[in-house]
């Protein structure tokens, strides 16, 4: 068969968002690939230049529909760096607990989409059902279900609601039971293993050269996790492992995310245990000094960076967002070439695309 270009997107079940992957196929084999992004560009960085510092928090929530809490946390962290605001310890613990819950919810959503991509309906519905447990917890904590608007500059918006500790421990216990079941469900399925093991190899040096971060990098054998390597917030107090595998294929990426969910469960438990009493929010100044602030966190999808430049007024002069997925998607042609057309969904699903943060 002659070679031909196939558009996967912008309206296509594979994409999980609004982007376009052009794939050149020779029969069923991929010979070239070319991602096109930018369909969802909303100009968030520019919008932020016209808003005051507290007004930006809900905007940063809109960056990623999968894990919005991480992004508003990152924003607050970078602005606190700019303003020099001290965050109360209780607030730090609440933030860490909340973003770990968010990480579990985000990974569960990834797993659901991944199972759905591979045609495994039962994986889709079961994981989405269990994501609901954590979305409910976050709703009890923050008041909303998708875009939380919870962190504030200098703390968090509210204290924990009543009985939240008990509910969280219960949810984590439940989740650990369910994770075992998922491992049986997915890894016990021969077809799932056939579709994953050895597919979408991303070698260590390629991953490093292309700037891939997050679970995709850790699956390629690089133990790089900002929570350990450049600890922020109260992560140094927490006892957890960085999940790393050497294989670099789709199965390794799946396995790393599953291990991260186990570790997140551990962190939620510890954060609830070690959480001190006290204030959860400090009053932050209205105007930021002239200068710069930098925040780096480990997003569920990789290393997220925000860089804020203040000019002495109550609005930032510039806000720069570094999206992990924007970098990861550029590695797609490197990974895709040589595999079959059906592997596109497995590989791109395994990278956990989130177009909101990608296009900003």
């Amino acid at each position, binding site marked *: *068969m002659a070679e*031909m270009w*196939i558009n*996967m997107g912008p309206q*296509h*079940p*594979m994409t999980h968002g609004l982007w376009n992957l052009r794939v050149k*196929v020779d029969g*069923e084999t991929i010979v070239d690939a070319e991602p096109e992004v930018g369909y969802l560009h909303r100009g968030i960085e520019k919008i932020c230049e016209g808003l005051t510092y507290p007004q930006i928090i809900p905007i940063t929530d809109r960056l990623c529909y999968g894990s919005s809490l991480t992004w508003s946390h990152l924003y607050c962290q970078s602005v606190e760096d700019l303003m020099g605001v001290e965050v109360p310890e209780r607030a730090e613990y609440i933030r860490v607990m909340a973003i770990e819950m968010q990480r579990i919810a985000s990974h569960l959503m990834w797993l659901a989409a991944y*199972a*759905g*991509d*591979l*045609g*495994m*309906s*039962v*994986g*889709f*519905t*079961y994981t989405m*059902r269990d994501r609901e447990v954590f979305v409910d917890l976050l709703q009890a904590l923050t008041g909303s279900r998708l875009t939380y608007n919870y962190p504030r500059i200098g703390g968090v918006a509210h204290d924990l609601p009543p009985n939240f500790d008990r509910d969280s421990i219960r949810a984590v216990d439940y989740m650990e039971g369910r994770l075992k079941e998922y491992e049986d469900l997915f890894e016990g*399925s021969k*077809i*799932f293993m*056939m*579709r994953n093991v050895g597919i979408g190899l991303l070698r260590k040096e390629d991953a490093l050269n292309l700037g891939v971060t997050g679970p995709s990098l850790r699956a390629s054998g690089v133990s790089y996790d900002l929570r350990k390597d450049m600890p922020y917030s109260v992560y140094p107090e927490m006892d957890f492992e960085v999940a790393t595998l050497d294989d670099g294929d789709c199965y390794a990426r799946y396995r790393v995310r599953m291990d991260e969910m186990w570790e997140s469960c551990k962190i939620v438990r510890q954060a609830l245990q070690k959480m001190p009493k006290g204030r959860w929010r400090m009053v932050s100044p209205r105007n930021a000094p002239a200068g710069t602030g930098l925040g780096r966190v480990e997003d569920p999808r990789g290393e997220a960076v925000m860089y804020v430049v203040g000019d002495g007024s109550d609005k930032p002069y510039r806000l720069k967002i570094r999206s992990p997925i924007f970098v990861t998607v550029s590695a797609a042609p490197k990974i895709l070439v040589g595999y*079959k*057309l*059906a*592997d*596109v*969904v497995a590989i791109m699903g395994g990278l956990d695309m989130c177009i909101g943060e990608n296009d900003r």
Partner: protein
Amino acid sequence: MNLFEFCYGILHWLVDLVNNLWYWLGDFLPWYFGDFFTAVGDFAASDGHLTFMTILLESVVIIVVALINVLNFLWIFRKLSGRILDFYGPYYVGYRIGGWLQNLADGMKLFIKEIIVPTKADRLGFLLAPVIFVASSLVILSVIPLSVNFGLSTNESGEYVSAGALFALAAFSIAPFAILLAGWSSNNKYTLIGGMRSAAQMMSYEIPLILCAASVFLLAGSFNFVDIVDAQHDVWFLIPLFIGFVVFLICLIAEVEIIPFDLPEAEAELVEGWTTEYGGMRFGLFYMTTAVRSYAGGALATAFFLGGWQGPSFIPDEIWFLIKAYIVYTVFMWLTWSVPRVRIDQMLGLGWKRLLPLAMLNLLIAAALKSGGWF
């Protein structure tokens, strides 16, 4: 009374009724018209004409009964998916009967939609493909008897079409042609790849399927459904030909294109595969035909391996047959909702490297059993 006698009786009664009026009308006309009227009436009442019309009526009755079962199948498809995937499934349309009317409602909705033919599509092929697909699938149903008395026969004795099983398998394998036609004529890259995949898949799974059926024909010594089922009086072919049964089921799943093997319409990478450009009732027909083929597949597996309509006599034969076919379909659905989709090269590898040798082995077992005199 078998289905032939029943249909013949109805037609005979109808023709007599009409002929009374017809001859009475002829009496009022001049002789040359009257003779013509008499000749037509005599022809209508002749045995040849009545037999021919009876066969047509029989197949219509059989297909309608089968289509009612297909509606049940679609309902099971949705309801069981709900049970497995943790949601309710159809509920409100037909509230008291578990949402059974949902499929009719969906069908009605599809009926009122516009039929769109893409500008650059090959119009003839595009419009012909669903017709071939649906017709070739419906014609399978007409030769599958539900019991000794409920099948397509050509005389009162209830003898069935002698090569009915062969005809069913032959009609089963026309579908790839229609799918390839649909995929090609749509003039779309997704449908083209879907059609090509479908052709490759169906051709490679046809061979083990036919080989497993051949082992059954060998043991039964006949292509006739009644003989095949009668041959299973002592022991179902499931037991001596267990390998064949498993291979047959896997091939059937590939032939009806449901999830582990639904590559031609793999929605994650090919949008809707070869049905991408079809909308309205043409899409509805494709959707329905998948269920028709599942029903035909379940019925074939039942007749070939599960003893057909044989069972304790407190339940009518026809119901026994349907129960077994429903169980086969339920197993299909159970598999569909719990496993991912395989890749095309893995699938062809499975077909040629695993199922074909197993089907050969199964044929060998059947031949050994036959020559050993056990059957």
